[in-house]
């Protein structure tokens, strides 16, 4: 297939993906660093490049509310946000997943206030980890674009019917210009397919009631059904990722492993830092340190078994969290990894790190030091620490 090679920022790539998907409705409110996505998309709308009805709401709360109204009306519906905007949507995110609407959202990871900060960390997205949304992280612009093209297929699959957020790292990916391989519009549209919503309140001949009050007799079963959908999502994400690979040449899974087969020391990271880790591994391997990376692409549903299987043979593991959960324990990713390892009966020394909050840079040398610390731990020279801050000003 013909591939179109362009230079695009993450935001531009996500907007291009949305143009190709051509949703029926978008409802969005601007917020740094996600603003550009809808800004660029508004240009597509007003230039007649898409059929989308763009609803320029007065807040993110109303953005997600309007998305729910639209998705319940048989319309393919998308939005974009970040940070405080995602937090303002919080209440409505649970409703979107609870009444099972396959909304797709581009989410640009940014620190949460206070103090106010516009730069990348994962605290906004992590704060919504229990919202019932599927969460897909991107390492770079290409992955952001590719995952956006897969998101509708996953969200709308009959066994899933659950909203999806595809995230990029604020400024690092959203504003970083990279080489992007785009695919022809027609091929993308063929892959994404026609929209068929789970139900439709515009079907006036078959009136339905949506958003009922569900009390002690059925609420519990509603939640179990959502859990089953999340379980099915793991399979569907793999199926869609595989088909995407066959169609466009790049296959996607729940996790990606980089040189883990023979690795003594494995680092777990999400988002753009995975790219930095790969570079660190290359250098360390030259020094004879067998380093590997486990990148979590899909944080919800959490690929616990898959992660445990990779880590089973490692001598020491480091988990990097770009968010704090203020629990006095490890960050959210490390905590979940540990739970997965416990369930799988895998016992491996594990050190957890907090890094990059509010956009604090993470350098190649920082990551190499993490691997060196793992080596010391494995050799019994030091004990694994938890929630160790990388690059903190002392």
């Amino acid at each position: 297939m013909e591939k179109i090679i362009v230079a695009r920022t993450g935001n531009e790539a996500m907007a291009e993906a949305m143009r190709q998907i051509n949703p029926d409705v978008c409802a969005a409110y601007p917020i740094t660093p996600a603003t550009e996505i809808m800004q660029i998309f508004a240009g597509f709308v007003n230039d007649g490049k898409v059929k989308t009805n763009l609803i320029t709401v007065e807040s993110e709360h109303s953005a997600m509310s309007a998305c729910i109204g639209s998705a319940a009306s048989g319309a393919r519906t998308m939005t974009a946000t970040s940070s405080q905007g995602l937090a303002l949507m919080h209440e409505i995110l649970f409703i979107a997943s609870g009444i099972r609407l396959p909304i797709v959202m581009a989410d640009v990871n940014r620190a949460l206030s206070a103090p106010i900060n516009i730069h990348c960390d994962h605290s906004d997205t992590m704060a919504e980890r229990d919202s019932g949304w599927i969460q897909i992280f991107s390492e770079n612009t290409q992955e952001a674009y590719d995952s956006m093209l897969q998101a509708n297929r996953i969200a709308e699959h009959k066994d899933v019917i659950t909203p999806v957020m595809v995230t990029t790292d604020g400024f690092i990916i959203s504003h970083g210009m990279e080489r992007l391989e785009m695919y022809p519009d027609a091929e993308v549209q063929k892959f994404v397919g026609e929209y068929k919503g789970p139900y439709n309140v515009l079907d006036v001949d078959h009136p339905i009631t949506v958003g009922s009050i569900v009390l002690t007799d059925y609420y519990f079963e509603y939640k179990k059904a959502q859990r089953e959908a999340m379980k099915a999502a793991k399979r569907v994400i793999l199926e869609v990722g595989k088909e995407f690979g066959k169609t466009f040449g790049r296959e996607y899974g729940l996790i990606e492993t980089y040189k883990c087969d023979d690795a003594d020391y494995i680092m777990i990271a999400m988002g753009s830092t995975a790219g930095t880790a790969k570079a660190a591994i290359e250098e360390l391997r030259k020094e004879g340190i067998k380093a590997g990376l486990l990148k979590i692409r899909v944080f919800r549903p959490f690929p616990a078994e898959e992660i445990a299987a990779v880590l089973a043979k490692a001598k020491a593991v480091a988990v990097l969290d770009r968010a704090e959960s203020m629990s006095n324990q490890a960050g959210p990713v490390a905590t979940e990894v540990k739970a997965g390892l416990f369930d799988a009966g895998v016992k491996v020394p594990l050190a957890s790190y907090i890094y990059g909050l509010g956009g604090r840079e993470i350098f190649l040398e920082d990551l190499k030091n993490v691997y060196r610390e793992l080596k010391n731990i494995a050799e019994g020279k030091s004990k694994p620490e938890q929630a160790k801050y990388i690059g903190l000003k002392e």
Partner: protein
Amino acid sequence: MSSPKQAAAVETKFIGGHRACAGCGFPIAIKEVLSSCKDPVVVVSATGCMEVTSTIFPYSAWKVPFLHNAFENAAATCSGVEGAYQSLKKQGKIDKNIKFVAFGGDGGTYDIGLQSLSGAMERGHDMLYVCNNNEAYMNTGVQRSSATPRGANTTTAPAGKVINGKQQNAKDLTEIMVAHNLPYVAQATVGMFPDATKKFEKAFSITGPKFVNIYAPCVPGWGYDTSQTVKLSKLVVDTCMWPVYEVENGKYKINYKPAVKLPVTEYLKTQVRFKALMKDEAAIAIIQAHTDSKWARLLLMEEATNKV
């Protein structure tokens, strides 16, 4: 316009079996709204008494499509439904003419949902927003709202030994909506059935954003006999505390001017919520003065806007 008798002959789309209290005002409002629309209608609702008493899973009192999202976002949700409709219609995927109505109580409309309402109205969606105004947060147990009238006893502004009920006048939401320059804004009361249905019919006939604020008494929240709902909702108009009027493209029309303007005490004395207030002559004087000044202003607005 229809009488209750005529409306009774129309197929009911909000059926019996809902769990609203005997004498509740809002089911009358719903009947007035739904019997006034000839086209198919989709209903969006805020959280509140109306939603929780009519959709207890797995039952529903609605024979029209009904969507509830949250408390403060009925207008935004309805704007999404209407937005989808416009998109699908333009693409030729829908050929029917469908009307959209969002319901909220005074809590979901005057207070927590005001931003959502203002945004949806400003964007010009083709939808009707109806505020079922029972003048307090009834679903959570009679807490004061910005629609609660001065002197009313509520659970968060109780008639105490030092402070006697709510100390502020109700916010004038209808005028706030007039300031949005909508094609149609009206104030109605459930007890004046022909007036209310005439307004809803007109609202449905107009393209664009419409707002109707309908007075809907609450038996347990206000404290009166279940048989008095309609009577009360007429009495309030005769005191000019809740004038019924409409503003069409900026022009005011007062739909009913009482031949004899009754003193506010005639209304206040009928409800337990004003029981403590009745001993407070100074407060009643403030309420009377406020009512008189608002009524005088409304008369002037009618005169002024019809001269232009």
